[in-house]
């Protein structure tokens, strides 16, 4: 029983932040366009590259918020 309470305390609402990066890249119609172009790069490409960075930042936030 002791193990069980331990397991429950391991859950954190911060983990929900990690869902964002699934949602934003799993729906291609949302980003499958050329416009807006940034520095000559079509939206399709810079949007996904930008999410690599944002996802890493989100993961870092969750890390610092949950690290005991």
């Amino acid at each position: 029983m002791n193990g069980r309470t331990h397991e429950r305390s391991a859950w954190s609402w911060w983990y929900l932040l990690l869902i964002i990066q699934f949602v934003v890249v799993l729906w291609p119609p949302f980003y499958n366009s050329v416009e807006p172009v940034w520095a000559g790069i079509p939206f399709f490409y810079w949007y996904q590259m930008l999410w690599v960075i944002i996802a890493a930042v989100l993961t870092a936030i969750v890390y610092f918020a949950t690290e005991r």
Partner: protein
Amino acid sequence: MQEVNWTALIIFIALFGFITWLGFAAAHWRKGDLDLLHEWGLGGRRFGTLVTWFLVGGDLYTAYTFIAVPALAFGAGAIAFFAVPYTIMIYPILFLAFPRLWNVCHKHNYITPADFVRGRFGNRWLALAVTITGIVATMPYIALQLVGLQVVIGAMGVGGTGYAADLPLVIAFVILAAFTYSSGLRAPASIAIVKDILIYITAFAAVIVVPIQLGGFGHIFAAVPPAKLLLAVPGANTTGAYGIYATLALGSALALFLYPHSVTGILAASSGHAIRRNAALLPGYSFMLGLLALVGFFAIAAGVGTAPEFAAGFKQFGNNFAVPALFLHSFPAWFVGIAFAAVGIGALVPAAIMSIAAANLYTRNIHREFINKNPTDKEEAQMAKWVSLIVKLGALIFIIFVPTQYAIYLQLLGGILIIQTLPSVLLGVYTRWFNDWALLVGWAVGTAAGIWMFDAANWTPNYPLVIAGHTFPGYSALYTVILNLVIVIVLTPVFNAMGGRHADATVAADYHG
């Protein structure tokens, strides 16, 4: 083929010589008793955050990836960029599930994913299924690393006729086999540091220098045919390219950390904390992979596909020649040597880890389970060393005697196979609710359905699933693992009622640090 590029070749050989020395010297790094399997096969679980970053980065972002993803962009366009959402989605999985796996494996001295399944579900046949799946999925992956090596060696003008043409490959593999045998996981871990630095230098140089030469990103994307620039908008009653893109990304993400070599790299970390930190740091490699995918477009814009001096290379290696051709076109010979060494060394790191992972699987989950139940520690480690040699020899023979295309087919199929271990390994980290026999049946059905879909789709990973008049073309791995999971959920209460359930060797507290 073109003349031998001596400047590039000398630099390539010099760097190769350096990592060969490093591979052998690594045996003395963070010294441990290499007669113990967890010392040889997991580097003593001693790698901190930084070394783990290099090791797992070198393990997952393989030489073949760096050749094949830009090649796909070069040939097929936007679809190749699925590698980016794919590598975005792997890190939450790493962050959440793998510190738990690390903890339980550390506690019970589990070395392989099948060790964990054996302990968690107590069923040796389920563990055997996980083992065989792991070995079968890994073998063609090792063979494919050789393709990356072959392409850069060929691009430097080193060739020959008949089996002499394969001599450089054989030499590279003998070196690889020797230092893996003597140093174990410490060898690829130390070499990964060199390899990753070289790859970063190469990627950033390419992304800065080539666009300047070609007149900026605007010009580059203008040169890409419109049909390749974006995903094709699906027609009526189908999810078309959108469905393929999303399912390929998600299915690949779910499959990645089930590969034995991924697990080996992660279990070698010194703590669950190091793994969590790496989930935030490893996306650095994803960013580089995205940049390298764009290099496929650079190759289109530079017109290397129609340049006469590269015609022979494209004829021999297909679109995989796009990146080497671009480098030969855009950079001085000395830098080509560095870039090609990055790819060549980049092939050895994952190949070493994969062969170690396959060797650990055989030793622990087949030999110890079914043949010699009570080996001494030394016998166990020695067995793994021998098996790592056999595995590499098998990959080498495969790539020399069988057309490359078959290795590519088998590697694609490997993704569909390995994902079938998701319920027992990845979900097993969270729950013991599943019945072990139900997991085994789910695995068998998922595997059979996956092979059938792969064959029905003419040996491609995307199957056009039809439901009520709508077509959902998508990655068979994702479809079949859902089928697998549904079967497991339905059969679990049935098998539980029949009373056939094994004990769990782990307790909840084992999963926390």
